[in-house]
């Protein structure tokens, strides 16, 4: 966990410094009334102080809890994250219906052990139900992609 806390502290310290840098370029205070950059700078300073404290605590405290992020279970999550980014792009370029069917079929095949016909029926049924509810009942238009 020590390593995890150090990465966490480093990431948020960097974010706070990044925000302070950009906020300082915003218009300054006028007549004692803070400008648009004042509030983000104030909050970023709090974030920076808290992140540095987390970093110091990580160094000084003994913590034996391991932060496991590279087991096969975690790798499965990272792959799923990547596939969902591909699904988002697929939805944009191909269209909702086809991209969703492929995504569902792919994940059900990966996660479960079902006959191919069951996987196709499930993927089709879920796509159809969600599409119908959002498009016909809630009137949400899915206007993207070259196909359906």
């Amino acid at each position, binding site marked *: 966990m020590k390593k995890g806390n150090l990465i*966490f502290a480093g990431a948020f310290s960097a974010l706070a410094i990044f925000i302070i840098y950009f906020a300082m370029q915003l218009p300054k205070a006028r007549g004692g*009334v803070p400008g*648009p950059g004042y509030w983000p700078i104030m909050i970023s300073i709090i974030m920076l102080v808290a992140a540095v404290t987390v970093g110091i*605590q990580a160094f000084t405290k003994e913590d034996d809890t391991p932060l496991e992020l590279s087991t096969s279970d975690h790798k*499965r999550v990272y792959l799923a994250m990547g596939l969902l980014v591909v699904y988002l792009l697929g939805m944009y370029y191909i269209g909702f219906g086809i991209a969703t069917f492929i995504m*569902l079929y792919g994940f059900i095949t990966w996660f*479960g052990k079902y006959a191919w016909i069951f996987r196709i029926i499930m993927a089709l049924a879920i796509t159809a139900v969600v599409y119908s509810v959002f498009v016909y009942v809630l009137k*949400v238009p899915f206007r993207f992609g070259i196909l359906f």
Partner: protein
Amino acid sequence: MIVEAFRLVLEPSVLLFIVLGVASGICIGCLPGLTTTMGVALVLPLTFGMDATHSILLLIGVYVGAVYGGSISAILLNTPGTPASAATALDGYKMASRGEAGRALGISTSSSFIGGMISCVYLILISPILAKFALKFSAPEFFMLAVFGLCIISSISGKSMMKGLISGALGILLATIGIDSITGSMRFTFNNMNLFSGINFIPVMIGLFAMSQAFVGVEEMNQKAVVARAITHVFPKRSDWGMIVKSGLLYGTMGTLIGCIPGVGADIASFIAYGQAKSFSKHPELFGTGLPEAIAAPEAANNGVTGGALIPMLTLGVPGDAVAAIMIGALMVQGLQPGPLLFQNNGPIVYALFIGCFIANICMFVLGLNSVRLFAKVLSVPKSILVPTIFLLCFVGSYALNNSLFDVGVMLFFGIVGYFLQKTEVSSSPVILGLILGPMAESNFRRALLMSKGDYGTFLSTGISITFFVLIVISLALPFFKKKFMKKQA
């Protein structure tokens, strides 16, 4: 106003939505890995096209149902459906192992019902008074209130106060993206048109609470659940009713009061109630062996929180927990701003909500006692189907808000961020509360300085502001005292 509220609630379609909300809430709650917050976040997009009454009462139905539903898997599988039911699992599963699963479920249902009803009574009694009082607030008081809300949430949620503060600060900073409401300057938009109007907190919420939880589901894909045991005699015996009513009244009240405190959710309330029940018991040594009162106390308390969390949300615009934060989002989508003026401008809707809470609890009681065997079947839905469906609902739900794929990207990004926050033991709730309370804090901070011509003394110029200041100091000092106390106890 009351007649108008009854007219709104007693519409058949509204009643149907409450029943549907409670039923789907129970299903969501009893599935291990699907939290109450996730359930409400997933149902939220379905409410965008509805009117305010239908929308908010559907969500309240899901909330009430899911908090109760968690106890079903806690009792049958020893795996709490939601964190709020973790305390119930301690004795509930032991009772079920003895062949008393039905009795345990009956006690859990009845005490949840009494706890929920008690919280509704407090909601009705306290809210109007608090809202009237909050009308006295001006910019400095609202600023101090927002800061208090943020501080207490950051200090209570999660294991580390510093991490809570970082999480809250992240939410506040996200809320600063877009056009500055006072000067009209662009902040952190980097010439990206999608950022001009800021980041909408609904995709962030769906990402942090639903998507990240679905990733956890992927991680735990290979964990097998034990098959549920037989359920008989769900309706509590006459001998159990005395204990159920007593626990329901006492711990329902306790849960409501705990729920009023921003950041303290149903999980904490149920463990406090379990601890109190143990200390009041004549046989504390039997706790953990399957005692009926050890099920009744946490269940009454966690359903007591449902009404309690709505009190600061409706009256002050400060969410009592993450679910209340989502409800603020739902109200804002409907054009309603939670806070003291909500009672003045939209009285019938507020009272309809109160009545709806009662109806939701009655539905939960009836469905719980009659259909618990049916809901237990939900436990057999395989994760391999459930998780991809949640992925899809997260995508479609975040798209439905503005018909924007950018929002879907935001949701996915925060889903990934939320997963890693969980891994580093950082609570995601302060991010959302920061997103909601951040604009309230900033606008009132700058307005107060504008009114006082830059005098910072304005933030401590009234009794209310000073009270909030003292509360802020206490909330920040609380974790240190808690640590010292725990060390002494050890």
